[in-house]
């Protein structure tokens, strides 16, 4: 019952705040103007959707912290501060990028800083063992002493994990409601998992349900046809939050991998491809699966719903699986991704037999061609 109240609170807050943020984005002229080939929307749309999710989440979390009676001995206040300040950096940094279209080479700074704050706050850093899918645990509590710095292996892993999650949702942000919808499924899965008797983390469950409520409140405005976009800050904030929830108190990384499996594999695939063809991994193109699905003739809604469905199936499965089961599920997921990619390629070739694959790198160029920076002003 109490979780329902948290959910409704953040949902209503997002519902109320999003129109205000839309106005603010208009006043600050932080608008996404349609531009081919990646910008598939038809009219200029305000960005800063991330700000509305962040504010709703922030207000709801403040209410939770002060009236929900959380046990700060389990999840210290410092963790919440890490989340609040890390999120703030991403949202503000994103807003700056949305406004001034920062060069791609400095775009990693905000996520790196936000992840560093998470590490500083201690989230996940206390983990010394992780589950071994083949039984037992793996010790990860190594420390490397470098003169005055005591570098913890887990801290490094948490930082890398956070960066990975942030970039996954950042690159996923291509269609109306795609990123936020997947994040919503992720949030709900984390919530269900945290409530289960195996994990039993009521605080994590509360954070997850508050995040989910805020995303859903925002999604009302952002589902196709969207009247507001997440923007850079929003897409990174959602990955950041899923990353945090999965490492806070531990035991949810595999689940996060499963829910975000399709986007993660998609991102990995695209990045490898870009690197292979000597293109910047930070510069956007239409290589992503969701663009491919659009190209084979699906509508935006259908594409988004297909990807929601896959994430939801794996998310639901993850809630009921043990470590070994999750490993198997991850293998299956990889196969599904492979099959999906192949199907898309085949269908695309069938549909456009004479059209050269505009976005396929049919040969490896000797040097990267001129690349127009279109990545960054995210679009849902």
């Amino acid at each position, binding site marked *: 019952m109490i979780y329902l109240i948290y959910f409704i609170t953040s949902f209503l807050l997002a519902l109320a705040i999003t129109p205000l943020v839309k106005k603010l984005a208009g006043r600050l002229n932080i608008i996404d103007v349609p531009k081919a080939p990646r910008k598939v929307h038809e009219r200029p749309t305000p960005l800063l959707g991330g700000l509305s999710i962040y504010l709703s989440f922030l207000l709801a979390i*403040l209410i939770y*912290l*002060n*009236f929900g009676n959380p046990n700060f001995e389990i999840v210290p*206040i*410092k963790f*919440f*501060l890490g989340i609040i300040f890390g999120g703030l950096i991403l949202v503000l940094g994103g807003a700056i990028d949305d406004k001034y279209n920062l060069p791609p080479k400095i775009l990693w700074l905000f996520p790196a800083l936000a992840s560093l704050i998470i590490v500083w706050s201690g989230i996940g850093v206390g983990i010394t063992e992780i589950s071994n899918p083949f039984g037992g645990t793996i010790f990860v509590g190594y420390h490397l002493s470098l003169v005055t710095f005591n570098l913890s292996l887990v801290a490094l892993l948490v930082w890398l994990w956070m960066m990975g999650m942030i970039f996954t949702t950042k690159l996923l942000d291509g269609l109306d409601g795609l990123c936020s919808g997947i994040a919503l499924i992720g949030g709900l899965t984390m919530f269900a998992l945290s409530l289960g008797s195996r994990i039993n983390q009521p605080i994590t469950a509360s954070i997850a349900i508050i995040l989910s409520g805020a995303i859903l409140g925002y999604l009302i405005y952002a589902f196709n046809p969207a009247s507001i976009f997440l923007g850079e800050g929003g897409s990174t904030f959602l990955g950041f939050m899923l990353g945090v929830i999965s490492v806070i108190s531990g035991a949810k990384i595999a689940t996060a991998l499963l829910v975000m499996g399709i986007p993660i594999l998609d991102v990995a695939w695209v990045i490898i491809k870009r690197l292979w063809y000597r293109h910047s991994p930070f510069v956007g193109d239409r290589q992503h699966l969701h663009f491919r699905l659009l190209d084979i003739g699906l509508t935006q809604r259908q594409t988004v719903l297909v990807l929601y469905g896959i994430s939801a199936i794996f998310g639901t499965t993850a809630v009921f699986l043990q470590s070994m089961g999750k490993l198997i599920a991850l293998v299956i997921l990889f196969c599904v991704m492979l099959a999906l990619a192949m199907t898309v390629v085949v269908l695309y070739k069938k549909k456009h037999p004479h059209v050269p694959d505009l976005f396929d790198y049919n040969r490896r160029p000797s040097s990267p061609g001129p690349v127009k920076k279109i990545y960054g002003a995210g679009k849902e």
Partner: protein
Amino acid sequence: MKKLFSKLIPNKKTNIFAVFLFGILSIVFLSPAIINSKYFAPTDVVRDNQPFLNQTTPHNRVTADVTFQFLPWLKLSKDLLKQGDFPFWNIYSGGGLPLFANMQAATLFPLTWLFFLFNFKIALLLYAFFKLFLLGYFTYLFLKELGLKYEVCLIGGTAFMFANTNIIWLLWPLSSVIIFLPLNFFLIEKILSQDKKVYLPAFVCSITLSIFAGHPQTLFYILFTTGLYCLFRLWEKSDNLRRKFIRLTELITASVIGVGLATLAWLPFLEYLKLSENLINRQQYLSNPFYLQKFLFVTNIIPDFFGNPAYKNFSFMVGYSEQTMGYVGISLLFLALYAFISGYKNKTILFFSSLLFLSYCLIYRFEPIYWLINKLPGFSLNYNNRFQYIWAFGAVILGSLGLNDIMSTGLNKVKFTISTVILLTASIFYSWQARLFSKTLQTPITWHSITNWQNFFFIIFALNLAAGIFIILKAKNNPKWLWVLLLLVFFETGMHGLIFNTNSTDKNFFPSTGATVFLASDFSNNFGKTFSFGNIFLPNLSTWYGFNQVTDYDAFSLKTSWDFKKNIANFNYSPEFTNDMPNIKALEFFGVKNMVYPQELKTILLNKNPGLQISYQDAQVVIFQLNALPRAYIVQAYAASQLQNKIDSLIINPDKNKISYVDKYELLKNGTSLVNYRTDKTSFLITNENYYPGWQALLDGKDNLPVLNISGFKAVSLPTGIHSIKIYYYPKSFVLGIKLSTASLLFFILFIFYSFRARVLKPSNKIIQQQI
């Protein structure tokens, strides 16, 4: 008649009229004590316990500290000053405790001098009068400096002078320090808005006097808030950076000189704090526990929701003093809300709104801001719920700004309605939460009657709010109604506070009884200490009557003394722990000659300890006489490394054969003692007085000997032969403080010279252009 009034009452809209008004309001507040020729002090609380029991029921028990600490300290200070001694030391508390260094004795604060100049009855009235008056007048001056309408400034001044925070702590040093909050704000306004710098020296004096006022914790909050306001004003001022930097440097210099001038007060305090048990205890907290539950916010709206210690049939309450400090009256609270909603674009309103939010977070533990603020130096060790002083001040200023906004730019009906709805909703929400909490309490009165009281107060609140809104709406069109609002504010705060305070009759002002006379006479003749059971002779009451009570207590407590009593002698220092039978042998070792118990426990005690001798008894108390060790005695010399253990074991298992006596012991004034002894072996003189840095020994009037700390006692290594030793207190920290204060005084003189001669800074061309 009208002419007569116009002659008697100064012209309206002048500072003289404000002085007149605040003076009259203060007199009205004190009128019950003035008219009935009573002491404006809660000394009737002594009637709660033996040997003072009679038919009197104390009016308000939560104001007890005044009786059990401050007034006895003032009396001792006064007596010592009369004898020509500076009140450094209190020989009547435990094994002796610093008096001046505890700061709350506030010996150097000018309002304290009233007690040295007048008898207590007059001094108490003047003390309260000046405090109230200055609180109101400085707030008025600050509001006036902000450019508010005259009547609004008077209303703000009235609200703050009678705000609960000042009424509850009126006779405490806390309110003495709070006086300097509006004064500092006023001086900052003056310093930053004018090129004339005569206010800089005044700011120096304000800082110095606020330190002398005697409450470091309050001082910390006030200096913190003053600093914030100073930075805010510098930030929002349309000066160039150079001018801002110069202003900031001047203010910082003034503050440093102000603190420097007061070194003689705070340096001894820091020395005492360092040796304090309470500080060590607080440092052990994982997180600061001094905050209020959120539902207690209801007391800002309905101050007596949990009862009032002064109401005969509704004294159900928990920590009234600590919880209800934020109340400034309904009207001002409503206006503050209106200002917050309607004027958020005004920077001053934004500052005070932020200050209120910050205060709320700190007082009611609003996470994670509470956690963050507690990371700032100083906050983690303080009673942060007492940040309510700042809340109250912020609410009054914000409310005044809101009222001024209504009077000057008109009333925004929508925002006015929203403010009303929010206040009503908040009052219902918090009352509901508070009522849920009340149910969980075990109270001396029935739940049903509590509910009735709470309903009653809620109705009073609603009527009060309705009256306030009605008057504000009327005042919008006719400013004369502002005088009615002033009266309403006085009723909400001053009249409420009037009920809270106690006026004691002559009979209840530290009454003398056979027991007190006996104990005082025994102490002056034989230096016999007293141990009293439970709440008989609460700490420092003995200071008033002139005998020594071993259960010492002030805000600090000496760690060494605490350790001895707790770990070795097996009796706790604090009165609430003394219900158990103490270790009589340890008491004897500690020099306790008299053990005071209520008459009804006499038989039980005698059954348990058949050897006990009764030295005095009356209808209420019985005093048993113990075979106490003298105040000073000689023990055989051990190797220095063994001495501590040997003494400890002696205390645990006293063997009087190992002890020899001195020829003569004389306790001179202010703790100085003179000992004549003879010994043929190297040995130690032990006194059962607290060791404290600064005590020195003089052998035969010429050679200095070090005073050692043995089990928290003062000890001196004795040369053989026949000698006399004088043990006296030489407060090194105070002496160093005086030197530093004198040096600061020189800087202060230079600073005054600078202030009056300083070049007037011309505004930059840019600023001039902006002004054009």
